[in-house]
C-alpha cells in the first residue's frame, strides 16, 4: 500500500494540470468560435500572401 504515497499525489497533480489547462484554454478564447475552430484545423496554412 506504500504505492499510495506517490500514486495519490500524482493523480491529484494530473487532475490539477488538466484543470489549469482547461482554464487556460478558456481564458485564451478557444471556446469563442466553436464552428470556425473545426475548419481552421483542416485549412492549408500557407502564409497569407497578397493576391496577384
Amino acid at each position, binding site marked *: 500500500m506504500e504505492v499510495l504515497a506517490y500514486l495519490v499525489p500524482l493523480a491529484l497533480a494530473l487532475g490539477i494540470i488538466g484543470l489549469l489547462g482547461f482554464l487556460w484554454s478558456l481564458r485564451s478564447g478557444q471556446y469563442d468560435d466553436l464552428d*470556425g475552430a473545426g475548419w481552421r484545423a483542416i485549412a492549408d496554412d500557407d502564409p497569407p500572401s497578397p*493576391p496577384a
Partner: protein
Amino acid sequence: MAVTRDFSHYVKDLGSGLAHLDLAVEGVSCAGCMMKIERGLSAIPNVTLARVNLTDRRLAVEWKKGTIDPAQFVDRLAALGYKAYPFEPIRAEVVEVEQSRFLLRCLGVAAFATMNVMMLSVPVWSGNVTDMIPEQRDFFHWLSALIALPAAAYAGQPFFRSAFGALRARSVNMDVPISIGVVLALGMSIVETIHHAEHAYFDAAIMLLTFLLVGRYLDQNMRRRTRAVAGNLAALKAETATKFISSTEISEVPVAAIVPGDIVLLRPGERCAIDGKVIDGRSEIDQSLITGETRHVAAEAGTAVYAGTMNISGTLRVRVGAAAEGTLLAEISRLLENALQARSRYVQLADRASRLYAPVVHATALLTMLGWVALGANWHDAIVIAIAVLIITCPCALGLAIPTVQTIVAGTLFRAGVLLNSGDAVERVADVDTVVFDKTGTLTLPELDVVNTAAIPADVLQLAGRLALASHHPVAAAVARASKAMSPLEGIVEEPGQGVRGLVDGVELRLGRPSFCNADRMANEILSTDPEISVVAFSRGPERYVFAVRQQLRPDAAATIRGLIERGIMVEILSGDRELAVRHAATALGVVGWRAGLAPADKISHIEDLKRRGRTVMMVGDGLNDAPALAAASASMSPVSATHLSQAAADMIFLGRDLAPVLSAIVFSRKALQLMRENLALAIGYNVLAVPIAIAGYATPLVAAAAMSGSSILVMLNSLRARRVAPEVT
C-alpha cells in the same frame, strides 16, 4: 458634396499603437469565406490581426493606429463580395458573454473535481466488499473532501446566489432544494468522515453540481447566441445618418454618434434613422412603419419626422430632437410602458415545477427522519437517511429537463428563420390559440413590388429598370428590382418631384409621374381598379407604359394562414390602415375577423378583450404603432424589418420574405413544450422509483450516483428528439 464615412465611433484604441474594430459580416457561411476574408485583409499593409468568428459571423481587425482609414476594410470586404458593418456590442450581450464564461469555468472545475472524486470513490465502493481497511477508507474520504469542498464552494456559486436571491424575495426556485441538498450532503459527509463512518456523499454532491451546470451552461449559451445574432441584425441594418459637420460638408456617421441639436440630411428614398423636426425642404413621407397607414404624408418645415419613416420625393434637412419630443412617439412610449407593467409575469414551467417540488421533497425528508426515530432508530441514523433522501431527490434531471429542450429547439427555430428574444418565449408561444396580425409590413412585404410585369414587354422593363437605377425614389427602386437591372444608364437627369429622363440612341426616355410622361389616362385606368396601387409611368419616344406598384402580400401568406386555421388557431387582422385596403387583404387571405383604422390604444384594448374571453393571443406586427400591442399580448413576433421598439417588445423575430416562420414557431414550440413535459414526467418518475429505496435506508453512495446519472442521461436523450420535428411545415 462628397460624403465621407466616419467609423471613429466604433474604433477601439488598444494602447501600444494598435487600433481595433469589430465588424458584423453578411454572407459568411463557410470555412472558405473565413479564409478568404482573413487572407484578403491580412494582405493590407499594417494590419496586425484579421480574425473571423464563424459562430457569431463577426470579424475582428487590428492595425497600427493612424496608418489605415477603417472605411478601407469595408471597401476591401465589398471587393471580396461581403457586406460588412461596423459593430458595437450592446451591453446586454457583453453581460451574457461574461456570464457564459463564468458558467463554463464553474463547469470545468466541477467536472474535474467529479472525475477525481469518482476515481477515489470507485475503490471505496468496491473495497467495501473486499479487503479495504477502515483507515484506507477514511484516507480516501478525506482526500475526496479535500477536492470536493473547494470545488463545490466555487462551482456552486451560480446556484447558491440564485437560491439566496429567491429566499430573500420570499419565494422558492429550483436552486433552493439544490443548494440545501448540496450543502447538507457535504456537511453530513464531513461529520460522517470524522466519525469513521462507512458512507460519504462527496461524489454525489459534486456530480450533481456538474450535471446541473451542464444544463445552466446550455441555457446560457442559447441566450448568448440569440443576442449575438440580434446584435448582428442591428449592425446589418446600418443605422447611419448623414450629418452636417459644417454648413456645407456632410459626413455619414453612425446613429449612436448623433446628439439632439445636430442637423442631418434626408435624401429621397432614405429611411430616417432619428426623430426630429424638418427645418428646410419639402417632401412626402411614408409613415407606414409607424402608423400602418400606407398613404404618404406631406412634410415641410416644422413637420415632425420619426425614426423608421421613409422620405419619398424631396431632400429634407432635419434638426434632431430629443427622443420623446414627438407627440405620437410619446403616446406610444406611454402605452408601451403601461402594457409592459400590466403583462402578468409568466411563470416558467421550471419554476412552476419547483414550487410544487421543493415542499414535497423537504416534507418527505422530514417525515423519513421522524419515521425512523419513531421506529426506534437513533437520531444520527435517522438524519443520515433523511439527507440521503434529499440527495436522491435533488432535481438533477429536472434542472436538465427544460434547458436541453430549449437549446435544441432554439437551433431548430433558427434554421426555420426564427430568432428567440426571450428564454421563456417557446413555452408561451406553445399555448397560443389566437394569432393577431398587423397588415402593413407584416402580412405584406415591407418594400413595394411591380405587379403588372406580365403586361409589359421584357425589353421595356429592362430599359425602365436601368433608368430607374438613377433614382432613389422607392417606386423607382421597385421598378429596378423587378427588372433585375444592374447597369445604370448614363447622362440621366433627375427632375425633382417629377421623375428621371435621359437620351438613349437619340430617343428620349422618361420615368416618373404619369403627367411627366404624358400617360395620365392609362394611369387613371389602373388606379381606379385598386385603391392601394401607386403608379409610375415610362415613356420611350411616343410609346407609353404604366407600371402598377404596390405592397404585396408575402408570397406564402395565404398558405400560412390556412395552416394556422387548420391547427385550430383563430386568425385576426388589426391594422392602422384604411378600411378598403384592409378588407382587400383580409378577403385575399380568407380572414374573417379584421378591423381597420385602429390607433395603438385600440389594438391593445382589442387584445385585452380577447384575453378576457379566455383566448391566449399572439400578436405579430412590425410598426411602432404595434409595439404596445406586442407587449400586451401573451406572446409576440416581429419581422426583422420592424422598428427597434417593436423588435425589443417581441418574443421572437422572423427573417426573410416568408410568413411561414410564424407557423413553424407555433408548431415547434408546441412540440418543445410537449417534450419538456415528458422530461419533467421522466425525471419525477425516476425519483418516485428511487425515493422508496432512500427512505428504506438503502441509498448508498453508489445507488445515489447511479440514479442521478441514469436519470440525467435519459432526459438528455429524450430532448434530442426535438431535432426531429415534423418536416410538414415548409
